């Protein structure tokens, strides 16, 4: 098959909408445009039925017992906000302490920072060099004031999959609510809120080949019944937890996307893991001082994150961006102008954080694309190293740490 450029290999930032999902959505923009809260006519019933069906499809994908446990939001960020702030506000009388990790996505960390300003205490548990959080470290962090444990299911940069089931058991043992940001895991690997003991789970449609602008928060109803304070007030939609007219076409698309993921996940995951491993072998066998970030096995099948010593990430992307779309943990590619705190949390040097490149594969990634991106990456790294004063010094045997660098 002929290659089509640019090649998209940035699926952990977003995914294309599956054409089957688009087909499912279209009628809900025009003919079936009803408001699901309109209780007295067929337009409303039709819309409500469509939303309920999507709720079931999503409930099934995450192993929820009851579709009513699925609350629709505008996306992962809102779900995370609602989960963490909702618990913090609802259980303020019980305690003011939250345990989370250092490598959560920005939405989680920023919510926690805001809560800290409001008088809550947050413990950011560090991770091991492979990105796994030590469950014992979470146990140590728990106090009698702890009301929430919030740990991501799988990391957005390095793909490391946490031992959520062990964390779920710990949370249950201590009687603490457990929220997991599963935006990167749902639809990609089997996720089950029952077996993992998850009380609140955030996910989003646009990472599972659904539309942007819709997400969900799973809120456990039984054993225990979790209550959250709503963060958006209004008509009392979504069992009072999230008011606002439901975006029916988006929700229908989300449901269909979830259904497809449930059907193809096993096969798709195996195929992508094989392609990912091929890309990894290709690059690591040809490039010296290239380091795999994250856990080599406990990792999302579509994720590959490598730091290339002596070259800066944005310059690597610039060499590739005419024909492929990737992302980097370099400061120059982040809105904060700081290098990746995730790579930093692994104990890697800041230089290696600046040098990290994430390849994330997706449903439509082909073998030809893998071969092309692998070969071009190797070329670009070689070219940039020829241009790198650090590479030159290292090859001369100079220990870069021995140099007194004059920072700007």
């Amino acid at each position, binding site marked *: 098959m002929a290659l089509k450029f640019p090649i998209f290999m940035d699926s952990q930032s977003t995914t294309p909408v599956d054409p089957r999902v688009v087909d499912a959505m279209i009628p809900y923009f025009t003919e079936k445009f009803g408001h699901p809260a309109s209780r007295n006519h067929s337009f409303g019933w039709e819309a409500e039925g469509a939303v309920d069906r999507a709720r079931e499809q999503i409930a099934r994908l995450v192993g929820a017992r009851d579709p009513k446990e699925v609350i629709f939001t505008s996306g992962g960020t809102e779900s995370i906000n609602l989960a963490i702030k909702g618990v913090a506000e609802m259980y303020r009388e019980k305690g003011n302490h939250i345990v989370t990790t250092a490598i959560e996505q920005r939405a989680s960390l920023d919510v926690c920072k805001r809560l800290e300003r409001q008088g809550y205490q947050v413990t950011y548990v560090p991770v091991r060099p492979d990105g796994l959080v030590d469950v014992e470290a979470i146990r140590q962090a728990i106090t009698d004031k702890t009301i929430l444990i919030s740990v991501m299911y799988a990391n957005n940069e390095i793909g490391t999959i946490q031992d959520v089931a062990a964390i779920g058991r710990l949370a249950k043992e201590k009687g603490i609510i457990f929220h997991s940001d599963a935006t990167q895991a749902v639809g990609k690997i089997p996720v089950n809120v029952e077996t993992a003991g998850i009380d609140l789970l955030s996910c989003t449609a646009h990472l599972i080949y659904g539309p942007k602008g819709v997400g969900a928060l799973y809120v456990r109803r039984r054993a225990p019944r979790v209550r959250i304070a709503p963060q958006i007030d209004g008509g009392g939609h979504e069992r009072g937890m999230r008011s606002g007219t439901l975006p029916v076409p988006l929700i229908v698309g989300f449901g269909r996307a979830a259904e497809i993921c449930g059907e193809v996940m096993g096969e798709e995951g195996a195929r992508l893991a094989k392609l990912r491993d091929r890309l990894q072998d290709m690059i690591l066998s040809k490039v010296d001082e290239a380091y795999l970030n994250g856990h080599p096995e406990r990792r999302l099948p579509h994720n590959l994150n490598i730091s290339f010593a*002596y*070259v*800066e990430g*944005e*310059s690597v992307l*610039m*060499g590739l961006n005419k024909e492929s779309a990737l992302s980097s943990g*370099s*400061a*120059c590619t982040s809105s904060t*102008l700081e*290098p990746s705190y995730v790579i930093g949390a692994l104990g890697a*040097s*800041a*230089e290696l954080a*600046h040098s990290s490149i994430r390849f994330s594969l997706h449903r439509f990634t082909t073998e030809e694309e893998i071969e092309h991106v692998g070969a071009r990456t190797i070329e670009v790294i070689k070219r940039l190293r*020829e*241009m*790198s*004063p*650090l*590479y*030159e010094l290292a090859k001369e045997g100079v220990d*870069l740490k021995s*140099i007194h*660098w*004059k*920072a*700007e």
Partner: protein
Amino acid sequence: MAYSEKVVDHYNNPRNVGSFAKDTPGLGTGLVGAPECGDVMKLQIKVNLDTGVIEDAKFKTFGCGSAIASSSLATEWLKGKTVDEASKIKNTDIVNELKLPPVKIHCSVLAEDAIKAALADYREKHAGTDAGKTPA
């Protein structure tokens, strides 16, 4: 963020990449930046000891595309200038030429620092000689 055409051109066709032999006469070397900050520039000048004119310049840069472009441009501008003229190159000249956006201004600052460091190194090594002075 889209890059300006000139940045892309310097990135794709960097001018004067490389290093001079350490015993090159009239050599001045500047090494600025820090790996943990994500950019390091090495800029070298080769000054004609009789005329005080920069005959050649080379660079190597660890950094983003704009950092590479800034140092590549700096080497182009250095060639043919006297040491005194070279010290007048300002980061704002680089910003204007490459149309760098505000978030990339630090790349041009680093390039100016690299020029200054290379000139200072040259002057230090050749202090007390006539070389380095602008010919009358």
